[in-house]
């Protein structure tokens, strides 16, 4: 369905808070100051696996300016975040039965970077100095870094009862899904292919080193922290601290990037709360850049074994994946690996074992289960298409999922994304039917990948108030993590209310002042909270129609908590990426020279940030494909490449021009037909780049990142 032109929606609207951000007036958590505030720093384990025999804080306590030193001996607060936004650990019932409870500080430390103590002092320098005076006697234990090694019978035990992650019933069962019967599918196949692909840990690497500022008013905790979900963050912290939700207020006005794993609480929220409670003054916990790298999370590394059955005509008859996900020592998120539902194949099997290791903790990173899955799956399928002598685009169009009577979609555009992308990219002109052909040393190649991503609907809330000056105030529990949620929410309100954007004020990011919100993960702020905004605006319009505009001190207020459904249909956004790379075979150097994306994300509410979201996500995906890793020393279990320098993140000079096109549709669901955008762009970028590298050099690079040493390794 074509989209109708609207007033505010669909225009290029600059961010409503752009000015305060670029002029430095926006106050991020670390900018906040409260009277009498103390600063805290966190001491971290320097060993990958140990029991703390003894911890001596006396010298630190004696340092002038130090107000408190806390450890596992002084505080035993469970840290159980992550239960709401996708992880399974420590849901309320699970917390009662789990055998693997993590605490704010643990006497048994399981990775380099694990918090072991914190110091509050008059300033950050004294606090940091005091960390160096804390003496810890570690009883070092054998450690394990690789998921496969962790499953060996004689592997060091990260947990005494084994290294497989436990589900919510404390059982080491794999996760996954299956359809049809893969054995039948392989029997129907003319050819069967098997291969292994691996992906590395990559850090979200958001810009703002995390901080938390806590203070108490009586029994109520007021917490400023950079979160992607004030409601979830409040609930998580309240649960860990034994408080009711209303006893915790979470505030996040500005933050330096989300990228996935902040829809919940962090241990440093608890540290700030505990120190502030003990000392009776506000306490700001600050993470250094390195703390922020090792003491948070990134995408889980994977080992994926695929088996694919294909008929002579290229029809896929069965897909089987058996995989391991490296979760680090604590199960912060699911460890799932997605992507298989992109194919129409009736016989599929995904068996994924999330495994504990003594690396840093894995967590959600922009489309948490997708880029690693799509890289492996669509490298595998790309390889199959070459082996079958079929153009990868043709292979895709033959095998992609399509709506059926049993499984309808709200609308469908995957084939259109692929076809339009192939044309815009000039696939026929750029793709080499003979991969690796040519004299070199500089060779060009083209790769394709295609995806769909949920644009589901669900419950969220919004409140709108109008006063007699016709100022509309919108209350939404969103935080602005980068994609511009404040602007999107405001322009949805302005559109439905039929007023200029300048007449809408927004109150956001405060669990006391705003209604519940699902939090900014799953690319669902627009589809869920945005839908609530439209509903609330409709209600307010009705009230104004009935009662007229308020006069004097009167106001009209409308609130909405809709929970819309898609009537049993799948609601998906679709996309296809086409990458061209240049590989210098003498230098092992890969450069992305052209990148074309076509996305169907429903109606585009604000093209300016929507295009930026796709571009930024593609760049992160290229970084995952070609650069990023967190190397560990195998002898000491210590990470070596933490930080922007070490991880070799893409710089502006590495960024290709990314040409994005949106196919706009209105499927009649969501706010004016809008779907999800934020995560879509990263999902297939690693696969598209890897497939282009294969097309250039004729060698299939099966392990991310595709670095110079690996390329020169296969070429020489």
């Amino acid at each position: 369905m074509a989209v109708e032109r609207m007033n505010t929606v669909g225009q290029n609207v600059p961010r409503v808070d752009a000015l305060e951000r670029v002029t430095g007036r926006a106050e991020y958590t670390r900018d906040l100051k409260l009277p009498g505030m103390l600063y805290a720093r966190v001491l971290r384990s320097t060993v990958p696996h140990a029991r703390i025999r003894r911890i001596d804080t006396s010298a630190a306590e004696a340092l002038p300016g130090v107000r408190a030193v806390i450890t596992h001996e002084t505080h035993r607060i469970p840290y159980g975040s992550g239960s709401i936004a996708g992880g399974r650990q420590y849901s309320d019932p699970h917390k009662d039965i789990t055998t693997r409870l993590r605490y704010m500080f643990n006497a048994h430390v399981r990775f380099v970077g694990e918090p072991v103590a914190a110091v509050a002092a008059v300033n950050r320098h004294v606090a940091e100095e005091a960390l160096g005076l804390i003496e810890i006697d570690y009883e070092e234990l054998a450690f394990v870094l690789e998921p496969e090694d962790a499953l060996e019978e004689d592997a060091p035990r990260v947990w005494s009862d084994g290294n497989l992650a436990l589900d919510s019933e404390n059982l080491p069962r794999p996760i996954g899904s299956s359809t049809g019967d893969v054995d039948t599918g392989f029997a129907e196949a003319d050819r069967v292919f098997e291969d292994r692909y691996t992906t590395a840990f990559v850090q979200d690497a958001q810009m703002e080193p995390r901080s938390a500022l806590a203070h108490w008013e009586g029994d109520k905790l007021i917490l400023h922290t950079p979160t992607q979900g004030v409601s979830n963050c409040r609930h998580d912290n309240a649960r860990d601290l034994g408080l009711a939700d209303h006893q915790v207020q979470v505030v996040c006005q500005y933050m330096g990037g989300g990228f996935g794993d902040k829809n919940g609480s962090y241990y440093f929220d608890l540290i700030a709360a505990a120190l502030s409670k003990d000392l009776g003054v506000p306490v700001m916990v600050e993470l250094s850049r390195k703390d922020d790298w090792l003491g948070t999370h990134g995408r889980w590394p994977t080992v994926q074994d695929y088996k694919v059955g294909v008929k002579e005509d290229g029809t896929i008859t069965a897909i089987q994946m058996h995989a391991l996900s490296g979760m680090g020592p604590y199960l912060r998120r699911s460890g799932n690996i997605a992507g298989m539902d992109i194919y129409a194949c009736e016989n599929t099997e995904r068996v994924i074992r999330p495994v504990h290791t003594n690396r840093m903790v894995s967590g959600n990173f922009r489309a948490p289960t997708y880029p690693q899955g799509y890289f492996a799956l669509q490298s595998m399928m790309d390889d199959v298409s070459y082996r079958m002598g079929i153009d990868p685009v043709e292979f895709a169009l033959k095998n992609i999922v399509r709506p059926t009577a049993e499984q309808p979609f709200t609308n469908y555009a995957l084939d259109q994304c692929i076809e339009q992308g192939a044309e815009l990219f000039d696939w026929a002109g750029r793709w080499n039917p003979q991969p690796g052909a040519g004299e070199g040393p500089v060779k060009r190649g083209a790769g394709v990948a295609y995806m769909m991503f949920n644009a589901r609907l669900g419950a969220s809330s919004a409140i709108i108030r109008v006063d007699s000056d016709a100022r509309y105030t919108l209350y939404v529990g969103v935080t602005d993590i980068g994609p511009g949620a404040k602007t999107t929410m405001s322009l949805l309100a302005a559109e439905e209310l039929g007023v200029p954007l300048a007449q809408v004020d927004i109150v956001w990011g405060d669990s006391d002042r705003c209604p519940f919100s699902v939090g900014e993960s799953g690319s669902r702020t627009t589809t869920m909270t945005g839908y609530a905004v439209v509903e609330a605006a409709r209600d307010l319009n009705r009230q104004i129609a009935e009662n007229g505009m308020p006069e004097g001190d009167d106001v009209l207020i409308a609130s909405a908590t809709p929970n819309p459904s898609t009537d049993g249909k799948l609601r998906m956004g679709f996309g296809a990426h086409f990458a061209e790379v240049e590989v210098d075979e003498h230098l092992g150097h890969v450069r992305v020279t052209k990148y074309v994306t076509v996305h169907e994300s429903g109606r585009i509410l604000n093209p300016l940030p929507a295009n930026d979201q796709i571009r930024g996500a593609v760049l992160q995906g290229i970084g995952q494909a070609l650069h990023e890793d967190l190397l560990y020393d195998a002898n000491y279990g210590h990470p070596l490449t933490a930080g922007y320098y070490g991880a070799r993140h893409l710089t502006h000079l590495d960024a290709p021009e990314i040409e994005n096109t949106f196919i706009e549709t209105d499927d009649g669901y969501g706010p004016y037909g809008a779907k999800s955008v934020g995560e879509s762009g990263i999902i297939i970028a690693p696969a598209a780049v890897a497939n282009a590298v294969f097309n250039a050099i004729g060698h299939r690079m099966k392990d991310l990142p595709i670095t110079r040493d690996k390329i020169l390794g296969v070429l020489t």
Partner: protein
Amino acid sequence: MKAFVNENPGSIDEAVMLAQAALREGRSVSFAGGGTDLLQLVKERVPNRPGSGVPDVLVNLKRVAGIDQVTRNDQGGLTIGGLTSLTDLGANPQLRDRYAVLAEAADSVATRQIRNAGTLAGNVCQRPWCWYYRNGFDCYKAGGNQCFSIAGENQLHAIFGGGPSFIVHPSDLAPALVALDARFRVAGPGGDRSLSSNDFFVLPNEDVAHENVLGDDELLVSAVIPEPSGEIRSHFYKIMDRETWTHAVVSAAVVLEMDGEICRTARIVLGGVAPIPWRVPAAERLLADQRVTPELADSVGIASIEGARPLAKNAYKVPLTRRVVERAVLAAAARA
């Protein structure tokens, strides 16, 4: 960050005296030029001076006048002050014109912000960027007694001149300066001394903790580039893991002294492959009195990897070095 005393001397002599005084009191000292890397080490509490740890005293050289520019000296060569910024080096018309290898090396360092603050002396004297040293391992370079890369992650480590430490020298300017046969002026308690840049750097089998001959109370004041006897054509070629802001995986500084289209002598110095700027005399000799052709450049590349001894994970550097040298030689010769 560790607390330190910041001294701001007005002259080289005063700087040396302040350093000596602090050392006599048992305090550790570092000289600070641009400070872009030094402050990072102090923040991370990585021992800058092996044995004496994180500095107690920083002798900040920013008020020392007269050593922050490029001047023509009496012998017709160039004297480059140690505090000359990398940005100024890259933009200097005399360098760009006659000693392109050095200007190109300066332009290739890190980022614009770092080049604005970073200095020649700081770049030449920076500590290694080995990830073990930088991550607080008690290695040779931090004053300890082992090299963790040998049995560990050594993708970026030395294929020449390694042992017992296998760091690679991190400076981009150093190979260019050695290729230009620069002399270094060093100030210290005994007054000034001048030595060849070739003799400035030391291999770990001579002094495992340091990368150069400087004592704790000595500093690099300036580099002097001699007047070449004929036309020189030069080029700096650097391979990085991304387009900017990394050290060299492999680099080559090539200086050819030309007589028409005949190369009389060549100096080829590699970065990123050895604990010091690494000369490859066998490759240089092949170019003597020759016309530079693609075939010759290929042979020069092959000669440059003679004797390479890769570790478990850096064998890719060997073919890479060959190609880097080949291309750098061709690019230098193609200069008008």
